[in-house]
């Protein structure tokens, strides 16, 4: 494994911000870190980059222990949420700064920067300042800076959260082309689960500084290990119903069907989503979300059911998956 | 840890310039150190403090300094608010007007103190000529004890109002304009807007200007030293000037130090009281706004 985190933790004032993080990321693999804000996903990234000191555990890149190395000795390429471009320097100068302090001679600097800017199709904007670029172009400059280092590991911290929704969708294939083709381990931090599923082969869900589950997008959705993951992954959110003997039954909205028998309910409201519709149905178990095809009619007597295999059981006390 | 190292030089300088003198004064205030002792410090069992408590000239100077501070700072705040409101209006050549308004603040106090001596000169200055021709008598603005202190107050107002106005202008610019629009929709006039919106929201800035100006005015020195020399009949003498005379004219360092440490204690308690009053007023106005 190329990037390995073993029981990594960060402690500030006797409080663990992140704790017991164990991750391995292979070459050519993109791992997404997701979780609600404050869950420690950015902190984890900063620990890998060396921007914050590690309080416990160790980090290895290709077997080399980098736990106590400075950021510049770690060979990581990082893209920041705000892109972190210097406003008073041109695109070219922004890219040149790192090369210059690393002692790369001038002709070589120019050659490398030209190559990278051609790759991200921004050579014609080399003499512009960041303020003169669009959001998408700035993001590509930030990416170019990371690529320029030819690092062992790529770290992307919410690289698209400052772009509007349409642009994000357009940029995803571009980002995959540029980063994933480098065949280096990549960690992608985002709060947007759609983005995580689109970009990553595996996703780690963080909750209060700990990893709840690391798995493929498919498994996270269909086999969540905890109630937290089940609720966090998937929109509209999973339905949680009270089961017998202190258990919680969770059912995805698209698994709910109308039927002749089962839980009776009343239509509260509906949302049209174009290719589907979302129904909010009031039952004695609380409001149930149901996702169905847009031309589905509403029966006069509403009764809800679902297949037993679509139901996921959790322990109400621990929030963990309980197998039948 | 390396972060702290960067701070240490500055802090050392600050301690050397602010804290050491206070310790030195406290120590000196319990010693006789004057021409009488050959400028050598000799313990004198609190004689300086005995003298300080019964010093009627100090008492007079304290009264005069407080009178100067309160009157000039009050006037500066009122006038500063008016000027801030004027400068807040949209206007052409804003930069030029602001610069002109700032000039009095930027000039060295002693330069204008000299100018004022000529402007208020009796009988040749323009002000005295005006009163001579209008009132038929000389104003004697710098020679008459009951008037001279007002003349110094005027000079102080002229110099420091721009500073107050700028602070208040910064405050005005933080007030969102939709508050005024909402009030106008409710039918409030400009007076109500000023009383109910501008002044309450400006209170933190008024408090800041008040505290800084009171502290500075309490230490008034340059202006009176050059403009009146403390006269006539010590009627414009300030505490700082008295301490200065004691040190450099009467060469009594021990007593000068006593005056300064005593004044420091008085000023600190005044600032503390002002601060308490300002914060309670601010809290009350915030409560009334919340309601």
């Amino acid at each position, binding site marked *: 494994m190329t990037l390995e985190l073993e029981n990594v933790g960060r402690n500030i004032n006797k409080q663990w911000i992140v704790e017991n993080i164990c991750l391995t990321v292979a070459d050519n693999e993109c791992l997404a870190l997701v979780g609600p804000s404050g869950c420690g996903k950015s902190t984890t990234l900063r620990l890998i980059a060396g921007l914050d000191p590690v309080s416990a555990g160790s980090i290895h890149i290709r077997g080399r222990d980098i736990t106590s190395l400075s950021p510049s000795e770690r060979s990581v390429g990082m893209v920041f949420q705000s892109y972190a471009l210097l406003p008073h320097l041109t695109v070219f100068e922004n890219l040149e700064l790192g090369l210059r*302090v690393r002692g790369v001679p001038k002709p070589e600097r120019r050659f490398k920067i030209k190559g990278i800017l051609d790759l991200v199709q921004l050579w014609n904007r080399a003499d512009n300042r960041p303020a003169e670029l669009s959001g998408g172009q700035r993001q590509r400059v930030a990416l170019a800076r990371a690529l320029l280092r030819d690092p062992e590991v790529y770290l992307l911290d919410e690289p698209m959260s400052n772009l509007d929704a349409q642009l994000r969708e357009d940029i995803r294939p571009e980002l995959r082309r540029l980063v994933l083709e480098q065949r280096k381990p990549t960690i992608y931090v985002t709060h947007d689960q759609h983005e995580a599923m689109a970009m990553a082969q595996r996703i780690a869900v963080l909750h209060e500084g700990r990893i709840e589950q690391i798995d493929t997008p498919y498994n996270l959705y269909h086999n969540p290990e905890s109630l937290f993951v089940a609720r966090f992954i998937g929109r509209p959110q999973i339905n949680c119903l009270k089961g017998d003997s202190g258990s919680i039954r969770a059912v995805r909205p698209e698994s709910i069907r109308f039927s002749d028998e089962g839980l009776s309910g009343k239509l509260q409201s509906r949302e049209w989503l174009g290719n589907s519709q979302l129904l909010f149905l009031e039952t004695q178990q609380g409001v149930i979300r149901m996702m169905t095809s847009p031309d589905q009619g509403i029966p006069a007597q509403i009764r809800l059911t679902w297949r037993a295999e679509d139901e996921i059981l959790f322990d109400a006390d621990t929030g963990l998956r309980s197998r039948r | 840890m390396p972060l702290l190292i960067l701070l240490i030089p500055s802090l050392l300088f600050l301690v050397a*310039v602010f804290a050491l003198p206070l310790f030195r004064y406290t120590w000196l205030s319990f010693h006789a150190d004057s021409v009488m002792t050959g400028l050598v410090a000799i313990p004198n069992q609190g004689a300086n403090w005995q003298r300080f408590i019964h010093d009627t000239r100090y008492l007079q100077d304290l009264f005069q300094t407080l009178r100067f501070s309160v009157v000039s700072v009050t006037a500066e705040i009122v006038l500063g608010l008016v*000027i801030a409101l004027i400068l807040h209006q949209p206007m052409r050549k804003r930069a030029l007007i602001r*610069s002109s308004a*700032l000039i009095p603040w930027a000039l060295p106090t*002693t*330069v204008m103190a000299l100018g004022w*001596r000529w402007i208020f000169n009796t009988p040749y200055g323009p002000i005295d000529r005006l009163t001579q021709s209008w009132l038929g008598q000389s104003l004697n603005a710098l020679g008459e004890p009951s008037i001279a202190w007002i003349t110094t107050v005027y000079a102080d107002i*002229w110099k420091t109002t721009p500073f107050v106005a700028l602070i208040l202008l910064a405050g005005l610019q933080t007030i969102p304009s939709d508050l005024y629009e909402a009030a106008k929709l409710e039918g409030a006039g400009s007076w109500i807007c000023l009383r109910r919106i501008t002044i309450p929201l400006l209170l933190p800035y008024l408090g800041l200007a008040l505290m800084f100006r009171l*502290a500075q005015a309490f230490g008034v020195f340059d202006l009176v030293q050059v403009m009146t020399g403390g006269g006539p009949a010590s009627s414009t003498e300030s505490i700082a000037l008295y301490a200065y005379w004691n040190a450099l004219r009467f060469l009594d360092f021990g007593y000068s130090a006593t005056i300064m440490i005593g004044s420091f204690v008085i000023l600190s308690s005044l600032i503390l009281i002002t601060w308490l009053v300002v914060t309670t007023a601010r809290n009350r106005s915030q409560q009334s706004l919340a309601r």
Partner: protein
Amino acid sequence: MKATRFLILALLVWSLAPLTWQLYTSFCIDQALVTPFASLNQRWTLDHYQSVLNSNPPFIRYLLNSLFVGGLSTFLTLLLAIPSSYSLSKMGRRSSLVIKFFLIGCALFPYVLLFLALLEIARYLQLGNSLIALAVPYAALSQPLAILLLTNAFSDLPAELEDAARVEGLSVVQRFRWILLPLISPAIASTAILVFLFSWNEYPIALTWISDSGKLTLPVAMARIAGSSIHSVPYGPYAAATVIGSIPLILLVMVFQKPIVSGLTTGAVKG
């Protein structure tokens, strides 16, 4: 609109009339000052300027002294305050708050009261009559304002800029050179100009430290001219000195109005 215009005019008259009167006085012959309404064949003169400029030492000397002390103390202040502000901006909330309160306390302190102790220090270290030494207390007295202003500027910078530079391998010195100093340069300009104004105008310390007439700063020189006699009326030369002494500052305020205003007001808005 008309009322506003009138008020602006009143404001300008209030601010500028005293100076204008000095300007007028400085060009009048003594006779015209004493009897302004008498008709004189000759009213205007440059004599006052000549006598001020040719006095011994020449008036220009004082301006140069003030310029030297102002420049040196500004440089010293920034040299001390920039690293301090950087570390203060990186500190935890609670410890930085304690230091900020201490700084505000120092800024509130009427520094006139310090002159005696500073004079003692100057005598003890034999620093009297040295313009270079005078810059040291000025730099120290300017620390509170400078640190508070610059700390605000450092805290306003996005932290990611420095993080990115660390990943790129820039050392602290390189980060200052390439990132921090260029980006806080507006705040540095504001601080520098305010410190310069303070040093240029400072009176009590210069009064007690400097006695050598060739080394006087402008404020002390002005006061000395005034102190030379209270009853005689060399008001023409006084006025000429006032005008010459004011011109550099008027230019300074005109040119640097923006950084002065922003320096004074960011302190107020954020403090």
